[in-house]
């Protein structure tokens, strides 16, 4: 239908308006399933979450019994009690994102730029990045628990090299949680950067050298700016899920000084059955991420990039 519209527009200009209108109805029909899905599974739950976050305890009721209200005090209570976990979530997520960028960028660079033209090698290296996805997320995190365990070889080796105090440990530490987050979200960082670098015209790198820029300067002034779309999507795909993650902090951390907000929400919801606080924290997390991300995207200035 839209092809017909385009054709008639190219031909005589006048009778174009009717087919265009029909094409628009066609487009909205095509959007219907997606819109319905989003309304049903995103808008409705989000409103429900917002409503639950304002509920109050039923007077004299059982544990987990609440009634609708507009109790904004829930937010104040939740934040004053759990702000350290919220702040820690963002700090951990930020460190993990930076670490994933530092590790993932060179990986993506080697695959996209250095292995350019050798599609067999590129394919193999990409499979290596994606391969961990073949195993379950939980299983991989539990495996990390084993790797970082007190009597495992990593800790033993560190102690032998005197890089760690004799009574030091890795498991149940902030390091273990951040390492787990970094590991688990690394592919989400590396793949968008790979895609960005793969589109990079190699003659631009040559032009940099031709115009008196050495390898590092060419990277700083040409390659890196042109891969920014990949860096931005990679950091978002890492930071957003990492700040809400609770698997790594529960499996690799301890419940006191490494707890992240996801872990608290999980506990509030399923153990304490304190739904309003859990909902309030979820809303706060959502809004905080939204604000942080929009500031970041604006600062990164992706709209200027091609």
């Amino acid at each position, binding site marked *: 239908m839209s092809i017909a519209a385009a054709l008639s527009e190219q031909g005589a200009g006048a009778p174009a308006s009717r087919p265009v209108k029909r094409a628009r109805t066609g487009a909205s029909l095509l959007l219907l399933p997606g819109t319905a899905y989003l309304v049903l599974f995103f808008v409705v739950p989000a409103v429900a979450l917002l409503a639950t976050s304002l509920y109050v305890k039923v007077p004299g009721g059982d544990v987990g019994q609440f009634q609708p209200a507009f109790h904004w005090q829930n937010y104040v209570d939740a934040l004053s009690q759990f702000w350290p976990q919220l702040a820690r979530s963002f700090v951990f997520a930020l460190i993990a994102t930076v670490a994933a960028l530092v590790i993932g960028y060179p990986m993506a660079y080697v695959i996209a730029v250095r292995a350019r033209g050798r599609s067999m090698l590129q394919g193999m290296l990409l499979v290596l990045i994606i391969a961990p996805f073949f195993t379950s997320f939980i299983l991989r995190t539990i495996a990390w628990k084993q790797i970082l365990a007190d009597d495992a070889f990593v800790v033993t080796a560190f102690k032998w090299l005197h890089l760690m105090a004799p009574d030091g440990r890795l498991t149940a530490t902030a390091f273990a949680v951040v390492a787990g987050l970094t590991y688990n979200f690394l592919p989400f960082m590396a793949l968008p950067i790979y895609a960005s670098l793969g589109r990079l015209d190699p003659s631009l790198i040559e032009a940099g*050298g*031709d*115009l008196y*820029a050495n390898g590092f300067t060419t990277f700083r002034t040409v390659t890196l700016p042109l891969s920014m779309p990949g860096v931005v999507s990679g950091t978002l795909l890492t930071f957003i899920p990492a700040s809400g993650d609770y698997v790594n902090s529960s499996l690799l951390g301890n419940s006191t000084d490494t707890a992240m907000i996801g872990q608290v929400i999980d506990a509030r919801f399923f153990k304490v059955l304190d739904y309003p606080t859990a909902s309030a924290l979820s809303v706060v997390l959502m809004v905080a991420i939204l604000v942080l991300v929009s500031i970041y995207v604006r600062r990164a200035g992706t709209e200027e990039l091609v």
Partner: protein
Amino acid sequence: MGATTAAASGSGGAALELWDVSKAFGTYLAVDNLTLTVPSGSFFALLGPSGCGKTTTLRMVAGLEQPTSGAISIGGRDLTGTRAHQRQVNTVFQSYALFPHLTVLENVAFGLRRKRVAQPLERAAEGLDLVQLRHLADRRPSELSGGQQQRVALARALVNNPAVLLLDEPLGALDLKLRRQMQLELKRIQTEVGLTFVHVTHDQEEAMTMADTVAVMNRGRIEQQGAPAELYELPRTAFVANFLGQSNLVAGTVVERGSDTIGVEVAGTRLVVPTSRAVSAVGDVLVGVRPEKIQLLLAGQEPGPGSNVLGPGTVTDVSFAGVSTQYLVDLGRLGTFTVFAQNLVGGATLRVGDLVSLAWSVDHTFGLAGDEDAADGTADLDDEP
């Protein structure tokens, strides 16, 4: 015009020399023992079909490839082994390679900034004046037309006042009319700034229009080099005769050797070739003549004195091309000759099936070595880039 004087006041370019340069990619020899001198301030064209090694040669001069053996020097300084950013050489890339994340002005200022030239933006703006694009300084390359991008790429290379400016098929992506215009523009700029230009192209007309010196490359070697007219009038190999313009070549045997001419027996007819225009004066040779040098004679018409005559033969094809008409004449055992006749009286004067003889001046005849393939360098449809 301030930009012109600023650019022209520089070194004015330097001579480029290649000594026995070879480049192998695995077992494939892209450039084969090439020795070449480009005089300072000249417009030099490397002409050849795709895959002849001309771009590889250019990339070795730029420092983007290193030769397998041999040496490259610019202005007398040996540069072999140095990297691209260390060489006072700039390239106009075939794809232009403009930085899409920078404005036109910042693209032009890129090299100036790297060299820490004072006031890079002012200098870049002057560079844009040279290509008449200052009004587009704040645009992104993607907002420019192909011809404008090409000129930005040229300005970006020129502002650095390089010892040698390399042009890698810079006009290849432009349409015919724009290409003609840019050829003249490039020539004008080169004359103005006086830098050494090395231009790589597969378009023989482009090479002849612009360059002072043309080197015809084939299979990694230089076949012949010289001024365009010299190359055209006196090709020394069958490849040059066919690749640069068109030629009619016939095989024959030297049967007579005079003081300044040789007589060549070609399928029963005697052709005369000036000794000075013959590569070989013994045994089997190829005798050649350019199509526009040939005069078509109808029965009864006499050739002028000092002419070689072949035929009669049958006209098999007539194609009218405005300025001239191209005739194909079948000469039986000698094959088919191409003749260009100027349309002095308007329209074609001969028809398919007419019997004609071909005559041309001895002075326009050239002789090539007989062991060459007479079809070498003719347009191969599978070979076109």
